[in-house]
């Protein structure tokens, strides 16, 4: 095969990769712009937050499986939420913990009547967060349900903001808050995760809400109406990405989910690549489960929200993966084969570089909205494309291998907690 032919194939592949990249980058650039607009609007609406005199009662569900390290801090934060004391309860669902989780909860229970314990015994438990949440829902007393992960430290006003938004708009099934990284400064990985979360929330959550009136349920820090939840069929115990799956079903039922950026919770993220990999593998496989479940029904669905949500999952776990693979292949093969980047390919390389530039700009916008546009964060963002984003390729590849080749059964895998991380009021 002549060098000329190789160069031609190379150019075609590069053009394909670029088209995909620019599709994603372009879409996210639009989302970043609308995310910025929404950040301005939401700050104004926070200041105009109505002072409800009669706050609705809320049941806060906290699924917990072997959470003794973080449980006490989370419960304390929840019990100190800036919400009328007699208008909320905290239901901890002890999912067959084998450590001292139950003991920690019982200790705090003896001091505060708002805390309830639902203990799933050994043999029935360990089936995942969705199952635990369904058990908790059966024992929740109120019609508004809030969900927090067992390692979260919500800011005191978080619940109040979420509930006020729900009361303001009866079309909403849920109001979702923002998740910030508690251990962002620990190492390179946690810095990347923190930037990823900020970008995701200001582009995908805020941008989509402003543009399409659509947001996704996160796994934590959200308030949902019991009626909507039950109409949608509660949490799917087979789904290991419970949040994504439920989002799609709520959309299918015609419900809206609003992103409320000033309702903030702080969460420790994995500090170790192994833990990160297992967590993201669960997300990727959970996303694929949702796609498999809903994609065949998509042509029958007339709801735009549902289509957008499925498209979003497809973009993250499939299109992005394919485009990154192709781009990497082109570059590496180009270097190895020593193909000179001639006059035909060089404009494409420029376009490729430009795409990375726009990608960085989008992240810089998200960082600036959050007030985290420090030189270190901007440098880390630049390094992320070549490191953290590349690690996603491995995650997606392994997820597809397990799903398609090995056809391995989906199994809930708990994220290993980071000990000693509690947010104090001064942080």
């Amino acid at each position, binding site marked *: 095969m002549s060098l000329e032919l190789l160069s031609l194939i190379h150019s075609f592949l590069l053009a394909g990769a670029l088209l995909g990249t620019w599709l994603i980058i372009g879409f996210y650039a639009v989302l970043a712009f609308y995310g910025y607009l929404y950040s301005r609007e939401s700050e104004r609406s926070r*200041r*105009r937050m109505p*002072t409800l*005199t009669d706050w609705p009662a809320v049941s806060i569900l906290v699924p917990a499986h072997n959470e003794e390290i973080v449980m006490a801090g989370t419960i304390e934060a929840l019990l100190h939420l*800036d919400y*009328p*004391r*007699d208008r909320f309860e905290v239901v901890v669902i002890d999912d067959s913990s084998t450590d001292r989780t139950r*003991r920690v909860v*019982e*200790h705090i*229970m*003896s*001091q505060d*009547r708002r805390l*309830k*314990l*639902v*203990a*799933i*015994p*050994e*043999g*029935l438990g360990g089936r995942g967060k969705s199952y635990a949440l369904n*058990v908790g829902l059966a*024992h929740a007393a109120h019609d508004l349900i809030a969900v927090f992960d067992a390692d979260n430290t919500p800011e005191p*006003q978080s619940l109040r903001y979420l509930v006020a938004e729900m009361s303001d708009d009866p079309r909403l099934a849920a109001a979702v808050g923002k998740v910030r990284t508690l251990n962002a400064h620990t190492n390179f990985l946690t810095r990347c995760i923190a930037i990823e979360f900020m970008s995701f929330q200001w582009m995908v959550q805020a941008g989509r809400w402003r543009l399409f009136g659509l947001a996704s349920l996160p796994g934590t820090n959200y308030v949902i109406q019991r009626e909507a939840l039950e109409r949608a069929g509660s949490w799917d115990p087979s789904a290991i990405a419970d949040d994504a799956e439920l989002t799609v079903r709520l959309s299918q039922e015609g419900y809206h989910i609003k992103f409320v950026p000033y309702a903030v919770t702080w969460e420790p993220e994995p500090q170790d690549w192994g833990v990160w990999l297992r967590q993201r593998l669960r997300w990727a496989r959970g996303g694929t489960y949702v796609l498999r479940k809903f994609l065949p029904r998509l042509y029958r669905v007339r709801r735009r929200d549902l289509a957008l949500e499925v498209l979003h999952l497809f973009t993250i776990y499939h299109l992005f993966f394919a485009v990154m693979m192709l781009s990497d292949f082109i570059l590496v093969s180009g270097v190895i084969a020593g193909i000179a980047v001639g006059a035909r390919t060089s404009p494409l390389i420029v376009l490729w570089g430009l795409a990375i530039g726009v990608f960085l700009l989008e992240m810089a916008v998200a960082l600036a909205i959050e007030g985290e546009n420090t030189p270190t964060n901007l440098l880390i963002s630049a390094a992320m494309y070549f490191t953290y984003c590349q690690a996603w390729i491995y995650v997606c590849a392994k997820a597809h291998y397990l799903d398609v080749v090995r056809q391995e059964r989906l199994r809930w895998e708990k994220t290993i907690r980071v000990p000693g991380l509690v947010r104090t009021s001064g942080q």
Partner: protein
Amino acid sequence: MTLEIGPVATLALALGALTAFALLFRFFAWWGRAAALGRARRIAARLSAPPTDLASVEDQSSAVDELAQFGDTDAAVQAALELMDGDDSAVRSFGIEVLRRTRAFDRWTRDLRRGGYRARIAAVEALGRVGDERAVEQLIEVLGDDDPHVSRAASMALLARDPDYAIDRLADALSSPNRRVAETAAATLMGIGEDSIEALVGQLGSLNAQARRLTIESLAAINAPGLTDLLVPLLESEPEPSVRTVVAEALARSGEQGAFAELRRLAQLDPDWFVRGRAYALLAEANAPGAAQFLTEGLAALQPEIIRRSDESDAVEVIAEGPRRVRAAIIVGLRQLGLTDEEVSAALRSAEHFALDGSSDAELADGWSEAIAALNQADPAGRANAARQLGEAGAPVLAELRRALRDPDPLVRAEAARSLGRIGARDCLDGLAECLRDPDPSVRIATSNAMRTIISKGAAEELK
């Protein structure tokens, strides 16, 4: 000779000129404000003493008019606020009149609702200097501000002018519908200390439960003398469990013998399960004399009630209200008293043994005699209903339920199987196993669910 200026120098010169212009502008603005303030102060000086004769009345009236219509409202407000710093009521009334006519109160109200941090703090400080009834009312509202710095500034501003009046208003604020206002007021009163005791004691008879609760918390934090004598009679008449809980906590903190006796009474007799559990836990926390024995006896006394109320439809254990909550609190207390896990487990086993084998079985079964009799009625729906009811009775009715497993009607057999599952009767597993071959599928399903529940419940208990 021609002077040549390059492009960089031109740019630098332009920037320099712009900076100089901006500085000059700022200077003139500052100078203008200072001059206006000076003029306003000169007018206000005519108001700094009470009127002495008719001429001074007329002069002061015209000074008030001049300040109210003064070109620079900020300067007029500042001058009027300076009048408020004195103690003379006539002089202060001039200041208030100027503030009213310059609409300063409206502006502060607006700032407090929608303003930024600096504007809110400035408004709080100004209202603190005014310190009249209207200003105090506004400051009390600000106690509920989202920003703790602003609410703290408000609590300090309240005390700046007339502390006695502010203490009374703060005590009234304990019953505010805005919980944060009430809690910040309580925190302020705690910070004031002994001077607020009188106002707080006045709130003990409040009709508002939140006010009573916060009052007791505040008095306990101040360590008010004679608090135990004040609180014990309250327990008798207090209808609100959350208030009885804080009374119990205050009593435990006092460490007096009389207080412990009262806590024991609460632990055994209070109608609210949480209060009972809290009283047990407090006895343990305070390491009251004989606490370990009292808690162990409490555990044994609770167990029959737990068995009688065992109504979960599956193996999930819910600790929300009821005796299970008290049991959890006692276990926490026993651990706090230094008992090892083995000792706590032994106490639990002994309590269960007492409940299952003790003489109370017959009494418990007696309570269900109607349902047991209903198992023999002709109507299958009635028999099924009775079998379902007996699922709440617990161990004393196992024999009746086992017999119902052989009822000719599948509805009754299925209900009996479910009830045995709810009770968690391991002894009945053999009888249930026979029902797995029942010709009716609903009986088979109910039986298999019940067996799974019993087995997992047993496994969980063994693990414990």
